[in-house]
């Protein structure tokens, strides 16, 4: 296609877009609806993901040691845990640190502090806090620790308690794992249904817009215009609809996320959609402008094809 033809196609596309103002406006409004749904899907996805991540991060395993456990034994256990492929992180809280944290936590409760003074000695053991890479892996880590205790045979075990082994805790973790997995799937399916429905609506609107031009298309055919030459301006028009709709949608998200930002942060924890929007703006720009332009072009292409047969 030469330069002159390209220029004519763009000129015709722009002119039709402008002169069929009302039809273009209707198509843009429908497209905004579609793109808005796609944008909301992106936000929902990330909120869901970070919320689930928060939940998962809160699940951990505490290994309490006896008060007389020598520090080198604890460090040994810590090193062997770190060597496990399932373990993401092991942090060590010494007896003194545990006591300091305890005092801090109960600084307003004189009764407990007095009782602590009365004991004279530090009643708290050291603690290893273990984070697994996946929820399902706490089981095998606990098995490993028990096995290690058994291997030590004659010596008394330095491990006082593994709070993971608490049955209720374990059930809660298992259930959380199941809930987070199904929440992710259900969320994804709902989003996909929404996106598919709005895309169908958008395609139909473009088809109706071009339906009103079907007589023009047949006239163009009779005057001897080639199929590509008839179709191309409509595609330009579709791209303009998609482009306008995506820019309006990007603008709409700015005040909307600003307004919802702190609310989502308080409710879901962790993520502020406003900052997420700003820091991921290139991603939103790419996805929304890309889908708008593609939808507009594909819808026009398919719609014109129906009327090009004469």
């Amino acid at each position: 296609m030469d330069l002159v033809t390209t220029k004519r196609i763009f000129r015709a596309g722009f002119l039709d877009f402008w002169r069929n103002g009302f039809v273009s406006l209707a198509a843009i409004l429908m497209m905004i609806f579609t793109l808005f749904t796609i944008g909301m899907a992106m936000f929902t996805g990330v909120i869901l993901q970070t919320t689930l991540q928060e939940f998962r991060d809160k699940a951990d395993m505490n290994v309490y040691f006896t008060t007389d456990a020598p520090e080198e034994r604890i460090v040994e256990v810590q090193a062997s845990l770190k060597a496990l492929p399932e373990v993401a992180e092991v942090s060590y809280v010494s007896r003194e640190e545990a006591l300091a944290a305890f005092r801090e936590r109960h600084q307003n409760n004189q009764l407990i502090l007095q009782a602590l003074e009365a004991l004279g000695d530090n009643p708290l053991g050291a603690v290893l806090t273990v984070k697994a890479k996946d929820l399902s892996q706490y089981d095998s880590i606990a098995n490993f620790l028990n096995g290690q205790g058994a291997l030590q045979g004659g010596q008394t075990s330095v491990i006082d308690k593994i709070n993971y082994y608490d049955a209720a805790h374990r059930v809660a973790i298992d259930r959380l794992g199941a809930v987070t997995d199904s929440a992710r799937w259900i969320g994804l399916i709902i989003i996909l249904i929404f996106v598919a429905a709005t895309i169908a609506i958008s395609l139909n609107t473009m088809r109706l817009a071009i339906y009103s031009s079907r007589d023009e298309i047949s006239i163009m055919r009779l005057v001897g215009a080639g199929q590509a030459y008839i179709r191309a301006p409509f595609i330009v028009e579709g791209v303009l609809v998609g482009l306008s709709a995506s820019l309006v949608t990007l603008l709409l998200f700015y005040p909307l996320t600003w307004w919802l930002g702190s609310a989502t942060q308080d409710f879901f924890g962790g993520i502020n959609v406003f900052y997420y929007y700003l820091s991921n703006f290139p991603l939103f720009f790419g996805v929304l402008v890309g889908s708008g332009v593609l939808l507009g072009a594909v819808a026009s292409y398919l719609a014109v094809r129906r009327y090009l047969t004469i």
Partner: protein
Amino acid sequence: MIYFDRVSKVYAGDTAALQDVSFSVEAGEFISIVGHSGAGKTTLVKMLLAQEKPTSGAVFFESINIHEVPPKRINDLRRKIGTVFQDFRLLPGRTAYENIAFAMEAAGRSEEDIHSDVPHVLELVDLGNKMSNFPGELSGGEQQRVAIARAIVNQPDVVIADEPTGNLDPVNTFEVVQILKKINDLGTTIVLTTHNKGVIDSLKKRVITMDRGKVIRDDREGKYIL
């Protein structure tokens, strides 16, 4: 130049729109096809424009069988034939100038040609002062003259005018017929379908009379006899 060879067209339900129609048109001729509504005039025109296929027989344009032209080459054929219709068929969203320019663009003509030819052809149909008007802002006669200007701007070998005066008052009818005669005098073949007796009788050109899908008369210098 145009040759209908025993053309029949039967639509669904066994309605025969054309039955065994044969005639030929020489280059530079002005022929009128007359007949009542439903006589088969419009079907003939649609055959020439490759909008309809004959059930049997063949239609030749410059010794090419129109219905054997591959779909992609149909545009080339249509650019050699200018068309004018009863309902004008202008692009409503484009000005008079743009409507004519579109036909030139479709034929791949240069911008310089468009800038020089469009005003010229609009002058020829006496619409030099209405170039920027949209079809909705023009009268029926003016719209038809724009359509004629569009039909001739690419200098086609033949202009087919299908009931071009059907929606026009007598004054505009006379003007449109005068323009068609002028185009014919410049060497373009004209095929006119009409049921306007006055037009046919004033033309004194060849007349093919059709009735119920058949050619019943073919007169060198005919009158409207039905």
